């Protein structure tokens, strides 16, 4: 465990020495501000319009959670699709191009300690991003009365999906020594995973899908499917299991690829 923390803290330090961490955070904050503001303005406009037409029923159904916070978190999860790979691309690739891999693999540490240390650093960064993001919904508590439970579930969903991204990014970084390739590989993997449900629907409509089981499997694998129900405040065991399985699965894959350097 000591080694895990040593590796994680070194990784975070070098992340914050380079411009990468700051660029990602700035871009994330700017995009978050933009989407949040436009979401709130849209909501306001909608409320005014409903009031003008005296549609009290619809007005009663409107709430900040479902109509501002959830869509906002949703769009930010898409933003994370291409920002997290920027953070994870160097995790292993940089060690390889640096030659420091030789130090790590000849030190008395296990591959698991190495992989978990790297993942922990990326996870801490994801947590930081989500904490940054939490400021925006928090503002709504000053002016309105969103449900706190639902809001927290949404932020939790974003954190969990971010951890999945981090594990996938770590894996992408472990298969190459080029950070650029690691970035694009992670991005493509994440994008495909995100859209699997959509692809399954497309396949079903075409009738090209071999069977319903395949379609259901694809839909189950898709991050979007699980994220969407949780971001609406529905915390279900099956979604939690999904996030845990995917994160751990990719960490195991990462461990295997790092180890395989030894067996070439």
């Amino acid at each position, binding site marked *: 465990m000591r080694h895990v923390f*040593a590796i994680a803290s070194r990784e975070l330090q070098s992340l914050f020495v380079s411009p990468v961490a700051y660029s990602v955070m700035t871009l994330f904050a700017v995009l978050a501000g933009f989407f949040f503001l436009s979401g709130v303005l849209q909501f306001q406009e909608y409320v005014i319009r409903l009031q003008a037409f005296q549609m009290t029923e619809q007005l009663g159904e409107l709430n900040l959670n479902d109509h501002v916070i959830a869509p906002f978190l949703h769009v930010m999860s898409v933003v994370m699709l291409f920002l997290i790979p920027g953070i994870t691309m160097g995790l292993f690739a940089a060690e390889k191009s640096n*030659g420091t891999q030789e130090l790590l*693999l*000849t*030190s008395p*540490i296990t591959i698991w300690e190495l992989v978990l240390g790297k993942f922990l650093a990326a996870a801490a960064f994801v947590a930081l991003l989500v904490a940054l993001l939490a400021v925006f919904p928090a503002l709504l508590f000053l002016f309105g009365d969103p449900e706190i439970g639902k809001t927290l579930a949404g932020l939790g969903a974003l954190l969990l999906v971010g951890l999945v991204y981090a594990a996938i990014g770590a894996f992408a970084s472990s298969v190459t020594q080029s950070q650029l390739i690691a970035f694009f590989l992670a991005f493509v993997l994440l994008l495909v995973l995100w859209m699997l449900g959509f692809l399954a629907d497309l396949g079903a409509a075409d009738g090209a899908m071999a069977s319903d089981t395949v379609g259901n499997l694809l839909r189950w694998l898709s991050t979007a499917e699980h994220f969407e129900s949780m971001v609406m405040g529905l915390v279900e065991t099956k979604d939690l299991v999904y996030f845990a399985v995917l994160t751990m699965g990719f960490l195991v894959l990462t461990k295997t690829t790092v180890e395989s350097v030894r067996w070439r």
Partner: protein
Amino acid sequence: MIEARGLSKRYGDLVALHDVSFSVQPGEVVGFLGPNGAGKTTTMRILTGFLPPTDGVAAIDGHDIFSDPLAARRAIGYLPESPPLYPEMSVEGYLAYVAKLKDVPRSARSKAVDSALDRCGLGDVRRRVIGALSKGYRQRVGLAQAIVHDPPVMILDEPTVGLDPIQIREIRSLIGSLAGEGSARTVILSTHILPEVEAICRRVIIMNRGRKVVDAPLDELRQTGSLEEVFARATTREIVTEEVAS
């Protein structure tokens, strides 16, 4: 202290190492010689656990590198061919990190770092960022990294490459002092500089095309001619016999 038995390494069709065996006793300083591509780095990488051999076994300080890898690696200070440095870290930050990886207990860590800085002449640059150091100083940081946990076995892959003559002398005397009389530290170092071997080592292993061709005390070799002659004979003979064979 170091036991290598029948080590072989193949990269695809290329045989980089063929049936190499040797053992090094505690306190011995062994010079590892051979032309480019002879297999020196490959042997060192196998001993340090970075690469698995295709065949053969090795043990460090009594710990098998497969069945007890962590203990074996803990006993080794290793300077790879290119020093494994993080350019964005400070010299002392880096050494403290390596000390953590090598299981130096927390209470002894800052002393270990100070002593490594001191022994490698890095006191003046301890707070500097590694990426901003000259090549020679980076090499010294690499060496400091290899000794920070005071290992009983040191494996140094061309430790003096890229250094100026004065630094070479200093590093040589440093290695000499690390392995000095009375200390039971075992050192294997590879180099292309023959006088370096004569200055530091008491025993020489010469590799050629993946095979061990000479393994003898320096004194003994000197009786049959200069080290340069021995080297030339050992590394050309192989080629001649191979040509005859084919």
